[in-house]
């Protein structure tokens, strides 16, 4: 898919992903590989499909809507943008082919040493997304960024998570052999983070849309006091406000994905706007979806809480809305003092 993909191409992509997801594949990694989605956003030179952020966003949105698990998010939203920015040629082709999954460490306390021509990492990485599953783990330390292969990790502790479909792990490294990916980790990570924000915003839009659809459908079907509950203004007006927030979230996420393709200079601002808005909108709609459902909404069997869990994870994963607003403030007009 070229970067000049048409609206029709995108609609076809969306329909294909949605159908595939709706078929209920339990192994999300295999599903994504089968559809060729791991390489969708990667350049053709790496064996990817050459799609842009707008196409990848469609996949993240549809995956979010279905609350998929697997390592697709960590691989395509976290690791691939880093490898792309670093000019990697080793891992990307294998990622594009769906042979290898990867992740990025956001919270590392690791030191690197060079020993007989081999870099070796020692230390601990906390809350690594898909850290127990990914084949390749990207680890920043100082100004450098390394890749460690899963087999070389000495200890992995799967963490308990609010959102079980977003597994996280603590990774311990003990002189693990590592490959140096870049010595300019600062710039690479900063750029990759913007793309991760775009992907997460798209996912949030998908999750929010699912919540809204669920709430609206229930409000049309459920009777209380001899009336369909969606005819009560308390429910109707709430759903309208949520629909408005989700509509604006969709616009914000799309504008950020568009900037990633067409106007990267605006990406720092637009990715922060998208995150600031989408995180709050999603938490709101996920909470109110439970409320609209009433008693059934607080049972384990009903999916509402799983969306709520994802929403809460997403609100903090790449920085809170307040932190993104701080970034925006800094971009609009730096503060004179150092007040945080």
């Amino acid at each position, binding site marked *: 898919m070229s970067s000049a993909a048409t609206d029709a191409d995108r609609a076809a992509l969306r329909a294909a992903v949605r159908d595939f997801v709706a078929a209920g594949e339990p192994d999300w990694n295999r599903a994504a590989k089968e559809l060729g989605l791991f390489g969708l956003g990667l350049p053709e030179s790496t064996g990817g499909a050459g799609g842009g952020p707008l196409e990848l966003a469609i996949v993240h949105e549809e995956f979010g809507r279905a609350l998929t698990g697997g390592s697709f998010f960590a691989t395509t939203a976290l690791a691939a943008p880093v490898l792309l920015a670093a000019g990697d040629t080793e891992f990307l082709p294998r990622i594009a082919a769906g042979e290898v999954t990867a992740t990025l460490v956001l919270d590392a306390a690791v030191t690197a040493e060079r020993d007989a021509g081999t870099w070796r990492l020692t230390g601990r990485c906390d809350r690594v997304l898909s850290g127990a599953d990914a084949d390749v783990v990207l680890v920043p330390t100082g100004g450098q960024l390394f890749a460690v292969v899963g087999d070389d990790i000495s200890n992995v502790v799967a963490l308990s998570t609010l959102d079980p479909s977003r597994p996280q792990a603590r990774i311990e490294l003990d002189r693990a052999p590592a490959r140096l990916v870049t010595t300019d980790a600062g710039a690479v990570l900063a750029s990759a983070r913007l793309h991760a924000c775009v992907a997460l915003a798209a996912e949030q839009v998908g999750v929010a849309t699912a919540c809204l659809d669920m709430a609206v459908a229930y409000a049309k079907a459920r009777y209380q006091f001899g009336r369909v509950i969606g005819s009560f203004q308390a429910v*109707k007006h709430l759903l*309208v406000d949520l629909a408005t927030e989700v509509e*604006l979230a969709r616009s914000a996420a799309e504008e950020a994905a568009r900037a990633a393709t067409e106007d990267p200079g605006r990406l720092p601002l637009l990715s922060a*706007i998208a995150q600031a808005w989408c995180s709050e909108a999603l938490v709101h709609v996920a909470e109110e979806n439970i409320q609209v459902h009433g008693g059934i909404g607080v049972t384990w069997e009903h999916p509402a809480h799983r969306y709520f869990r994802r929403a809460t994870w997403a609100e903090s994963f790449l920085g809170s809305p307040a932190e993104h607003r701080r970034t*925006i403030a800094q971009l609009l007009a730096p*503060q004179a003092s150092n*007040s945080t």
Partner: protein
Amino acid sequence: MVSDYYTYMNQEEVVLDAVASLIRTHPPTETPVEAFFGAQFDAGLARVDLPVGRGGLGLDAHWQRLIDDRLRAAGAKSPVLRNPVGVGMGLPTLLRHGTPEQIERYHRPAFTSTELWCQLFSEPGSGSDLAGLSTRAVRDGDGWRVTGQKVWTSLGHLAQIGMLLARTDPDAPKHRGITFFLIDMTQAAVEVRPLRQLTGDAEFNEVFLTDAWVPDSARIGAVDDGWNVARTTLANERVTLSGAGGGIPRVGGRAVDELIAGARSTGAWEDPLLRDDVVRRYVEGEVIRFANLRARRLRAAGQPGPEGSMMKLAQALYNRRLQRTAMRVLGDAGTAWDPADPRGGDPAHGLLRAQANTIEGGTSNVLRNVVGERVLGLPREPGPAPDTPWSALPRNG
């Protein structure tokens, strides 16, 4: 295909020739505005799809856009800005529902703004529930006698023609006993009083009709079918609202930029909480702007986008929050200012004016009903049976 193409080329040539000729004979920047509009009308460039001699040239309607763009480029004024209610809302109604005689009578004077129009729909007793209106029109010979009170009438004090909705059959269901008239606003039986708003300004009027006269020839559409006629007017209201003073400002852009600049100059930007408040408004404004851009893109691609009512809802609440944030950034300084400072009261005025944004043009609660029912497909509330006679409905005394 080939002949279509030539027809097309031919139409374009005709249009461009007519525009060029008008500009030559009536240079827009030198011709008095009413005279220019008159010449534009007579040249068939007012509504190009109407017949020759009726303001048009009998060509395809889409050429109007080209005409308007060329005339604007040449410095011509906009008829809709001169006579917003008449041109923006009245003419679409007249041209759709009026008889040939009525169009002949009212079109040219409205277009040239020699007759200004106003709208007499809202009443004190029926705000959100427009169709609940109480103003009565009673047959009297070859016309009607009208008695009642209207409110929120922009330009009421200047207008010669009023688009009037009056109840002609109180015993019919409320939407089915209303008739649409064009009433002569200059008669003594029509009293127009400025309506002072909470800001102290008077953008609108109250209109008192006491046995006012309207000939049956000024009735638009059938007797008791006025609600159907008024739908055309209301559908065109949004277009016009954006031209009227005091509407909702364009979101994003200037208002927020000024707020940020103001916060930086007073030091409020250094306060993390005030700064966050301002940035929240910035984000909200940008996100609404993105949604408007997206809606335009989707419309251009022929796809459905966010509904207008939804965007109006978002923008109105946004502006109330924006003005409140602006006041918080100023603190005390926004609530008391030197009378010698001509702009000292602007933030207070903006805050007060914004409170009406969620009321005018459809209250937020009414818009939520509209979006909930039309966009989300939620059921209407139970209420009086739709065939209840208006006279049997509980209403304000």
